[in-house]
């Protein structure tokens, strides 16, 4: 049986504006993920590691990152594990190969680097042919174009980087179509570009995105994995996602219509974890008097998470019954009615702000401390 380890989209060196001052820690996590992936490859005694592009976040990565990758490639070489690398749309140099490949090759002379032209390498001892290609920037054709469709070995595997066709999504002509993948007849196609682990073509010619081994953005629930691929026989690939990422993304939807402030706090607190990136979305209808300060929640609970983002998408509940409870002959009553009219007339992107203004005005008239 042949065992492969498929990883992609590590994006070493990536800046994380969305994480603010935690960005540096996440970059260290990316670097640690690469080390853990190599540790896993060694522990699982894989035959071949496939890096399907975007190892780096930039075509000009920092020397320290190239050195890190070189060290890890050297470790693979020392463990007699083969490695094949394609460039991605972020880290391919002017020659189409992954940035710094000459230096990486010095560290691991046995490493395979695929450039913008299709190439096939045969591992005679494994009876396996590996075809690979780095994407060509601005290419109008799929990266799978020109790939061999017949095999001279028992096993045939591919590695490349690019986007796959998705129903309903209009992309350029360079996307890979399921028919193309099927026509290649590969035992496994290792893909990179999408940041969540995902099978895009099923057996007997599976094609997978490994996803990013570490979280790169807020909405990546499928990140944090590498894929172990066992080829017992042609057409019988067994793909097992293995989690190596440290950070987890959690989306928390809280309906304030059915949760009071204590329940909201409890819901957020229950997800607290130093390695969790939490997106807490507060929604629902709230009475005018109930002000939800997203920032206050972030400040209160942010320390218990790696990163906490609280988004207030609540809407003020102000129907006629609510209005009837506020006498019109008071400033409060007049204010609520004035703001209600303004909210109704305002464009969609302004309504949230005016709703908040309504709540603040009411709270101020009620003598509550909301101006913080």
């Amino acid at each position, binding site marked *: 049986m042949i065992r492969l380890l498929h990883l992609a989209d590590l994006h070493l060196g*990536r800046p994380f504006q969305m994480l*603010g001052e935690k960005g540096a820690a996440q970059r260290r996590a990316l670097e640690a993920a690469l080390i853990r992936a190599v540790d896993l490859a060694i522990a699982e005694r894989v035959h071949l590691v496939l890096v399907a592009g975007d190892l780096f976040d*930039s075509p000009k990565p920092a020397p320290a990152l190239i050195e890190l990758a070189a060290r890890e490639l050297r470790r693979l070489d020392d463990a007699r594990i083969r490695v094949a690398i394609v460039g991605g749309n972020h880290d391919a140099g002017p020659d189409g190969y992954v940035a710094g490949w000459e230096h990486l090759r010095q560290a691991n002379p046995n490493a395979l680097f695929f450039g913008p032209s299709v190439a096939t390498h045969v591992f005679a001892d494994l009876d396996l042919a590996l075809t690979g290609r780095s994407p060509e920037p601005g290419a109008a054709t799929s990266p799978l174009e020109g790939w061999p469709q017949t095999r001279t070995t028992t096993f045939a595997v591919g590695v490349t980087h690019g986007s796959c066709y998705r129903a309903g999504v209009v992309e350029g002509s360079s996307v890979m179509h399921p028919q193309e993948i099927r026509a290649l007849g590969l035992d496994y196609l290792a893909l990179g570009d999408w940041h969540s682990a995902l099978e895009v073509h099923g057996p007997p010619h599976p094609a997978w995105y490994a996803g990013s081994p570490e979280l790169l953005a807020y909405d990546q629930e499928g990140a944090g994995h590498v894929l172990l691929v066992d080829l017992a026989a042609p057409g019988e690939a067994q793909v097992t996602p293995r989690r190596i990422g440290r950070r987890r993304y959690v989306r928390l939807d809280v309906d304030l219509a059915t949760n009071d402030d204590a329940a909201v706090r409890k819901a957020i607190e229950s997800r607290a974890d130093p390695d969790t990136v939490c997106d807490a979305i507060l929604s629902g209808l709230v009475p005018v008097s109930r002000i939800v300060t997203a920032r206050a929640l972030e400040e209160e609970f942010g320390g218990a998470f790696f990163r906490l983002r609280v988004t207030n998408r609540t809407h003020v509940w102000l129907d006629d019954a609510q209005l009837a409870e506020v006498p019109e002959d008071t400033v*409060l009553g007049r204010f609520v009615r004035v703001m209600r009219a303004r909210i109704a007339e305002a464009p969609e992107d302004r309504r949230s702000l005016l709703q908040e203004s309504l709540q603040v005005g009411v709270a101020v008239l009620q003598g509550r401390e909301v101006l913080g």
Partner: protein
Amino acid sequence: MILRRLHLRRFLGLPDAAFEFAAGVNVIVGPNEAGKSTLRTAIRTVLYENPATTSSDLRDRFRTWGVTDPPELSLEFTLDGRTFHLTKNFASRRVTLTDGLGRMWEQHKVVQERIVEVLGLGNDKVFDATAHIAQTELERIHLSSISKELGRIIGGGGEDVATAMRRLDAHLRSLERGSKGTTVKEPGLLAALERKASGLREDVDLLRRNSAEAERARAELAELAAARTALAAELTAKQALLENNREILRDEERLASLKREEALWEKKVRDIEDLGKRLSSLDHELETATAAGVPDDGRTRTARALSERLQAREQDLAALRRDLETPPPPRRSPLAGWIASALGVALATSGALLRDAAAAWVLIIMGIIAAGAGIAFISRSARAGQLAALRAQERERRRQTLEGELTQVRAQLDTVLGDIGCASVADAEQRLQRYRDLVRDRQQVAEFLTRRREGSEDEAIAEQWKTVRRDIFGLQERLRAPEVASKRMTPLQVQGLEREVREMEQLLAQAQRREMKLAVDLERLATDAEQLAARDEQLAEAEEALAMVRRHHEVCKEALAGLTEARRLAEVPLREVVEKRAGGYLAVATEGRYAQLAVEQETLKLSVWSKEADGWVEAAEPQLSRGTVDLVYLAARLALVTLLSGGKHPPLLFDDPFITFDERRRSSALALLRELARDHQVFLFTCGRQYDAFADHLIELTDRTSAGTPTGTPAPAPVPAVGPLWEQR
């Protein structure tokens, strides 16, 4: 809310007793010092004061003189059919409120909130300013006490509108501080975040610019390094070629030198050989000469001397013979001398005869001289003749001597020559000279040879010569080698190459200097990617925070704008409500004479519409009578009670408010009170008995030793023919 029973203990001298009250108009009558004001104070105290206060002044204020413990007040009241008991114990500092269901509240804050909720008047000041109308306070509307309450009521939210809006405005200003280009010591959050974001943006831009510059420098450095490497390689090749040619030149010079040396060595060797041969030859000749015999040097010299003497003598003899054969020169005649002497004498004598002394002496002297010369000539001539004769004799004698000497010498010479075995002196000398020459020559040759050898053996010298010849051969071979021959350049070409190398060295030095500068620039500009990413992230965070604060600012601005508009819209109708209500009350109280009342918004100054004046008249003396002014302010305060209590119905306490009213005015005022009694419990404290018939419940306070004696609930006074308040228009 209806107060039913007030039980007082130890309160400002009043007896420990309970006072019973009823709905409607409660008239409390009694003389001065009977305790009317105290009872009024007790009602106010039980409704508003805090028994848990730590202020001993406050607690002592209500304490009966001479009694140690502070007072205790208990109030029973009904609300919407439910009975409540409120107890305020200033001694134990406890307050309790219980309802008919057994619920109890003991925290003053909670209790007071409930009492205020029922009364509708938030604090004692508002109560004093509105529902608690004292005799002398009709005119004053305590603006400071009620304005906040009015604002709160008008606000509708519980907070005074003006205060709320001021808070919001202050918050906005605080946020905006320093954000509109002004320099302030402590900028607000907006300005601080804008500056932070701006600073970070500049940092990021600078880092990016530096990174781009570093990239350009790096690219240029790489190009330059490649060019320099190529230039260095080319220079090295040319330097090598130049060096090769210089080496060729050196070799050629060395070859020439070796050749010269070789020639010298060859000459040396040849010289040594020649000298050796010569020496051998000389040795041979010396041997030959020696064998032939070498004359003795001394005897040869003797022979030479003899020969020379012989020659000399022969020459002398020859000369002598010639002299002898040569006739003597003719002698000079002495006649000339005799003439000269005679002349001299003549001259001298002539001179002696002259008269002229000078001429005489001249002639004398001349004569002497001439005579002298003549005499001398004559002497010489005589001597010469004598000498000639002597000479001839001598010559003859000498001839004879010479001839004898010649013979002797010739014999000696022959003897010496015989001894040395030479035929002649010349032969001897020649043989001796030859020997000497041979010896000398041999010595010279030997010395020369020694010098030429210079202390070395001939074999060594020959070996040296061979070595030099081998060196020459080696050099020649090297110079003829193809790899050397192929590099050989002409001198002109070498010159050109030297110039080229110099230029290339300068170019290389320039390139190295440029590289060093670029390396320094690169070190200065090189941006750590991690630093740039971190700055970018800080900037994103700062911009996000700024966006949030800006949004918050916008939210507050909209809220303030909304509140401003709402206030504008709300206040006018509320003032109108007060004016309308107060106008209604005034119309009842003045029997329709004054029915319209206006309130100035800020100062709450009152004006009434006067039909007589056909205009608005300020409610003050002398424009209006004292009584009318009192009625105007009474109407206004009653309207404010209604407004400020928010529809609640607090009890109204009147302390003889109509004391200045005449009968008719009093009657109208009482009608007004009756109307009020429909919704409010009225307490009228008075000294006179004119209100007894008006009371729904009469309490007589005789003195402080007994509680008021309720005298039952008299039949209500007839309502004057004035309808409900709202039907007065």
